[in-house]
Structure formats: C-alpha cells, structure tokens
C-alpha cells in the first residue's frame, strides 16, 4: 500500500497540542471581603487579580512548552468577564500565553459555572484545543465546578485537583489530590485538567514580557454573539455576613488552657 499524504503526515506528526487556559478576574485573595449593607453583594471596589488557581494553570501551560518545545503549539487564555477582565488576560499574556479571547459581559454579571462551561465548549469546538488547564475553583464563588461541567459537555476525560501532570504520546497522566492521599489517572487527549495548589509556583511576569504582552492579540466577543445566553439560573436572594464568633478571649497560662478544656468536658 502506498503511503498517502495523510498517513505520512500522521506518521511523522509531532503531537502538537493547543492549550486553552480559562482564567477569572477575582477580588484579590489578600483582600478582606466586605458585604454591602444592602445585602445584595460584596464591595467590589477593591483590588482584583487573577484567580490564584488560574495562575497555576497558566504557569503549567508555559512549563509544558518550556520542557518540550515541540509539544505545545499554542497557549490561549480565555475569560468570561467584564471589560476590566482584559487586564487579567494581559497578565496571562505577560506570563507567556500567546493570545487571548475575551467574552465580555456586564460589570455586575458573575456568570455561573454551567454557562461558563458552555462558552468554553463553544470555543473549543471552534478552535480545537487538545488540553484545557484551569483552576480547580475560583476564590469568589468557591463552586469548584466549571472544569467538571466542561468535561461533561464535551464527553471527554477530566482530571481535577492536579498536583502533577505529564503529557506523552497523546496521553495525559495526572496525579490528583483526593481525600486521604493521591490518585493517578491516565487518559487520551483531549482532557480537562484542573489545578491544585501544589502543581507549581507561578512566575511573576518580567517587565519586558509585560511590554511584549501589550502587542499580543486579544479577540473580543460580545455575549450576544454567542449562540446561547449566559443568564444565571440561580437567583441570589441575599448576601449576608457570616455569624460572628464570640472569640477573642485570652488566658495567661497553660494551666488556664487545661482548666478551660476541663470546663468543656474535653478532658
């Protein structure tokens, strides 16, 4: 049998993969969040930055390419967020992503995981990404759901809470943090991998890279251009302060500690 062009290509093909890194602009992790007196939300006029788990995902994508130049063809960051989320995309570009997609929504619209997952699926079908690296949860909504939902919508493999990732021969091998230990799973690409804290330590973007990032392309898409709507399914009835603990009592000695524990019947 003569080798066809397609077969030749396949035989010689490097396993180039295109990586999609979904990121979210969140209130900075070090800010003490305050509930608005109207009970409708929290004070949003504070410092924002990239969700820390997403920074880990961006870092992992860059490291994959640094480890093996032939492996990663492109790294695309994507966000569903307000106008200001472009700053967060620029941060990803300055770290080393090649290009970005911004799905723009209203300033007050915190899009739910299911609608974000549908949006990601839309762009994965359009642009063909073989690997999605994303944070296991955003530190605002704390749902821990978007990656799993995306994998379900795509009917592909998922590996959540990753603390180590290897890609070889079109397969991803992922060590996951589970209750009481670690689990390793392995599957063919495409795969959705969500990152846990111990996967890596993200780099800071250097000044030259921040300058370079300004020239990298960001595709802007309006939510009305999508073939589905991003309306929230859940109605937020109110947002309230958590019950405060009546703590703050100090004692003077170890004997006092022992006494308090005795009073509570703990010893």
């Amino acid at each position, binding site marked *: 049998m003569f080798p066809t062009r397609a077969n030749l290509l396949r035989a010689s093909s490097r396993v180039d993969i295109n990586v999609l890194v979904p990121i979210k602009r969140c209130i900075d992790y070090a800010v003490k969040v305050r509930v608005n007196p109207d009970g409708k939300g929290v004070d949003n006029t504070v410092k924002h930055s990239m969700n820390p788990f997403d920074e880990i995902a961006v870092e992992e994508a860059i490291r994959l390419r640094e480890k093996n130049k032939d492996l990663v063809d492109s790294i695309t960051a994507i966000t569903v967020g307000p106008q200001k989320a472009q700053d967060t995309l620029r941060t990803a570009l300055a770290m080393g992503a090649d290009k970005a997609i911004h799905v723009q929504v209203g300033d007050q619209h915190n899009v739910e*995981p*299911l609608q974000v997952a549908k949006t990601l699926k839309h762009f994965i079908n359009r642009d063909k990404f073989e690997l999605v690296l994303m944070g296991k949860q955003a530190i605002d909504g704390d749902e821990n759901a978007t990656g*799993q939902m995306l994998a379900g919508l795509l009917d592909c493999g*998922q590996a959540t809470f990753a603390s180590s990732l290897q890609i070889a021969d079109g397969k991803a091998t992922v060590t996951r943090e589970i209750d009481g230990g670690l689990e390793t*799973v392995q599957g063919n690409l495409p795969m959705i991998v969500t990152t846990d804290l111990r996967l890596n330590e993200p780099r800071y973007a250097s000044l030259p890279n921040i300058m370079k990032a300004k020239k990298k392309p960001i595709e802007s898409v309006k939510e009305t251009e999508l073939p589905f709507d991003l309306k929230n399914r*859940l109605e937020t009835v109110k947002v*309230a302060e958590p019950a405060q603990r009546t703590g703050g009592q100090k*004692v003077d000695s170890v004997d006092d500690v022992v006494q308090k*524990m005795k009073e509570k019947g703990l010893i």
Partner: protein
Amino acid sequence: RDALLYLEHRDGKLNAGTLSALTAAQKVNGKVVGVIAGSESISSAIDSARRLPLSRLLVAHSEQYDHHPPSTLAPLLKTLMEKDDSLTHLFAAHTAVGKNVLPRAAALLDTSIIADILSLEDGGEVFTRGIYAGNAISTVKSGESRKVVSVRATAFDGADSSSSDQVVVEEVAPVQVKDHAPHVSEEMTLTARPDLGSAARVVSGGRALKSAENFGSIIEPLADSLGAAIGASRAAVDSGYADNSLQVGQTGKIVAPELYMAIGISGAIQHLAGMKDSKLIVAVNKDPEAPIFQIADVGLVGDLFQVVPELTKKLS
C-alpha cells in the same frame, strides 16, 4: 419530590460526609433514594447502606464504577434522574469524590450546581452557601426542575445508620460508557489517627513550627494525648512540614470538631474558612496580634516550643 443520594464508599465503608448529605436530602420532604455503585467488592458497604433511612436502595454493579470515576458515574446519575419523574433533587457530599462527579452530572442534566450548601429551606428550593472563603453567606433560589446539590458535611449531623429495618436492594443496569481517564493507582497516607474530616478533635500546626521534624515532635504528642486528628495550615504544607492531605482551609479540608487547637497558626482568611465553625478553638501563638486570636475561645500568647510540651505533659 424525592431526592437521589449518591452513596460514597471506600474499603467497604460508607463515607461519613454521605450521612450528613442524607440529613440534608431528608429536608426536601420527600423520600430519599440511595444509589451505590462498584464491583462485587462493595457488598459490605451495601450492608451498611441498607441500615440507612432510605426509601429505596439502587445498586449498580460494575467494575467501571470502582474509584468513583466521573466519566462513568455522571451518565449513571443522569440516567437514574431522568428515568424517574419523582426525583427532583440529586445530592452528594462535597468531598473530593462529590466535587469531582456531581458538577459533571449537573452539566449532563443541563442544570446548575448548588455547591457546598450550609442549609436548605422551602423543601429544597432555597439554599445558603459560603462565598469568598466563607466571608459572605449567599442565599440562592433555584427554579430548575432538577436540582443538583453538594453538601458541606460539617453543616449537617450524620443520619442514623443503625435502622433495624433493612432496605430492599434493587439492582440497576450500569450505563455502558467509556471511562476517558481511568484510575491507574493511588497512594493513601496511612495513619492510625482519626480521619481529619470527621474527627471530634483536631490539632493543627502552622509555619511557626519551622520544620517537619518540629511538626512531628511537637504536634504529634499533643494529638496523641487527645486522641485527635492532625491538621496543618497551608503555609505549613507549602513549607513541607506536613502532608498536603492535612491542609485545613478554603481549598483544603473544612472541619468543625468539638475541639480545634491552632498551634503556631497566624490565621489567614483562607485558614479560618476551614475551621471557624469548630465548637472550642484554642490558639497558641507568640504574636498577640495574630488574627487567630480574634476567633479563639482560649488564646494563649507564648512560645509554642515551651507551651505545647508543657500542655502535652499536663494532658497525659
């Protein structure tokens, strides 16, 4: 208005968080149908499940469900929900397994997930859940016809698991789908101590311990004297003093024991999110301004290297 509850199990035992999720599911005011899945090796977990307050117990026997893989379990849960119109809610505990499987099942049902709930009202129409590491509590209402809900174990008491009437087991057919990312191996941290997630007492260490050796020689004897589980702050885990499975906080374990001892932990927002619902919080820290003291019931300012050995001695 019945609820389907995914019964998580390991080594033949039901997960403690699943019993809390069952209590939450009972508040929907209908019956609770349990579903358990796995190979023949799950028979002792099935025996335990039969003693739960369930109206029915569905069992899907197949090796494809061992280790709770999301790509096979989510289609099973979707099929069971769609087959029975009386099922309006799908519940699981917000554990590593629940977090992994439930959102995928929700997406297959084209419904949102209501994650990590602290309470539910109005027969499971209205829910509260923490956002921003528990610094705000959001009340949400779902108008979806099917509601998928994961439950914070520490927010609900565990259901009674010693019913004398045994639930009849109904076999259900496994849904044949490909496992896209099969289990290869696992490495569990072996410990004779109580499980961190469900222990009545927890002793946690922080960065001030300065080394893994100190963590072992200071924290372990105190935990032993109290029969407590061991936890750690993220700083201690990141510094390599403690195993990552011990991390207490927003992104680690959420605990609410009778006694929580924070040793050399300053009390970052993310750590407080994981333990502030503990009944009695005892904190030892040399910095009197450490945020942990604002929520501690018993705070002792002092050098942990002197205080903790003395405390251990007095407790032994």
